[in-house]
Structures are given as C-alpha cells and as structure tokens.
C-alpha cells in the first residue's frame, strides 16, 4: 500500500453531522487583498454537495479575489456564483492545495467540504458500539467493500466448519442424531456436501 496522510475523529456517541476544523492557506499572488481573520474555521463534510463551498460572508470578510464563476443548481434554476482558489489544511495537517471553492450562503458553518475533496481520498463513517468514528485519508489507496468482507467471513467460517466435520469423520465417531450409526454414513455425508456447495457459492 502506498503512503498516505489521514485523520480520524472519534466521538463519544453517535453524531449526525460530520464537523472538523480547517485552516486556510492563501497564495498572495492569487488573493493579494486577503485579510486574515482567525486561524481555524468550521467545516461540515457533506456528501450531498458536489463541490466545496465557502460562506459568502466569510469570502467577503477575507477579501478574496474571485477567480471565475460556477453554475449552481437551485430551486429557482441555475445561477452563477463566484468561485475562489485557496488551500485547505484538514485535521492532522492534511494539506490540499489549490481548491476551487464556490461562494454560497451558509448558516451554521464556514465551509462545506464537498465531493470534490472527498473524492480525492478514502472516507469512512463507522458506528461500532454506538460511537461514531469518522476517518479520511489522502490519497485514496484501497477499496473498502462490506459485501466482499461479509463473503470472506462466511467463506472462512464454512472452511472451519468443514474441517471440524472432516475431523469428526476421521475419528469414526457416532452421529449426534442418536441413530447409532457412524457420522460418516448418517448426517455427515449430507452435511459435508451442503457445506461444499455453500463454499462454491461464496468462493472469491
């Protein structure tokens, strides 16, 4: 696996909004009139946003220079809004340079981190034991497939079951059904056949 940078945010309970802090980095040649306000800004990670958004008010306060316009779909149709270029430092010093951010009206956050950034890496939200763990790494380096994981687990368990039955047959013990016959000639034969069929189905 290639090298990557990552951050993980663990919460005490379940959370319904994925929030982190971000630091912005400004290239003075692109934004010569930039005014620093503070070090950290709030960002909500939003898989429903195609692009990263900066609060319109914040962009004005920072005195950013527009670098073009973006087409945005709204309830009232498609509108054109300003876009800016800046760098973002995510938690754990995970740096992403030259992000095109779109200006929009945001109430409860300074930034929305959209799919343009999420698509650069691997993004996961897990909720084991009622505790949300949100993790992101950059760049993307592995596919996480829960269906594949379930198949692998099933395959492993069936192999274990098969080995146990084969050992039982080798020992020449009686069938646990109480028929008095050897396991090999009673239920064993059918059960081994069934497990082998199941194994064929989940074979990866």
């Amino acid at each position, binding site marked *: 696996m290639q090298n990557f940078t990552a951050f993980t945010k663990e919460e005490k309970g379940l959370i319904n909004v994925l929030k982190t802090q971000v630091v912005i980095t400004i290239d003075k040649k*692109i934004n010569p*009139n930039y005014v620093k306000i503070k070090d950290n800004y709030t960002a909500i990670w939003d898989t429903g946003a195609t692009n990263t958004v900066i609060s319109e008010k914040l962009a004005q306060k920072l005195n950013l220079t*527009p670098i*073009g316009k973006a087409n945005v*779909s709204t309830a009232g149709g498609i*509108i054109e809004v300003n876009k800016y270029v800046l760098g973002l430092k995510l938690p754990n010093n995970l740096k992403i340079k030259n992000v095109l951010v779109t200006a*929009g*009206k945001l109430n409860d*956050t300074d930034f*929305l981190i959209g799919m343009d950034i999420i698509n650069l890496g691997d993004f996961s939200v897990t909720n084991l034991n009622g505790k949300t763990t949100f993790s992101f790494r950059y760049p993307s380096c592995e596919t996480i497939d829960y269906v594949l994981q379930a198949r692998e687990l099933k395959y492993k368990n069936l192999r274990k079951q098969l080995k146990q039955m084969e050992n039982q047959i080798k020992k020449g013990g009686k069938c646990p059904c109480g028929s008095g016959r050897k396991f090999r000639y009673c239920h064993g034969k059918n059960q081994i056949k069934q497990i082998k069929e199941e194994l064929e189905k989940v074979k990866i």
Partner: protein
Amino acid sequence: MNSEDKNYKYFKKEENNLKKKYPKEFVVICDKKIVFHDKDLNKTIEFARQLEAGKYIIQKCETNEANNIQMFHTRVRF
C-alpha cells in the same frame, strides 16, 4: 463592468467553441483572450499566478453538462 465580469461574458459567448477547442481543459482568460489552457488545475493556477489578480478568470471547458452544474442537496442556499 469589472475585468472578471468582462472575461466571464467572453467565456459565456464563446463557451461552445471553447468546449470544442479545449475539451475538459481549464482555460485562463485575460483581456477576453485565452492566454493558457491545460487539463491540470495546478499547472493552470501556476500560470495564473504570473498575472495580475482580478484581471483574469479560470474556467473549465466541461463537455459533460452534468459535471458543469454544481448541486447541493442539504444546507446551502444561493
């Protein structure tokens, strides 16, 4: 009308031609002229750094209309 608006007006007017000429590329428009084009945003920004801020725009000649429109399904208003 400021330089950004003038350059953007030029982009909208020429958009269809630019999409044919520079498909999926970023273009730098300065004084209503294409002064740079590349598929890589970082290279495009590196070029734009030499120009006077506010006098140019960077636009992508996106040929897939669906990719050209940003969508926000939750908390943002415009």
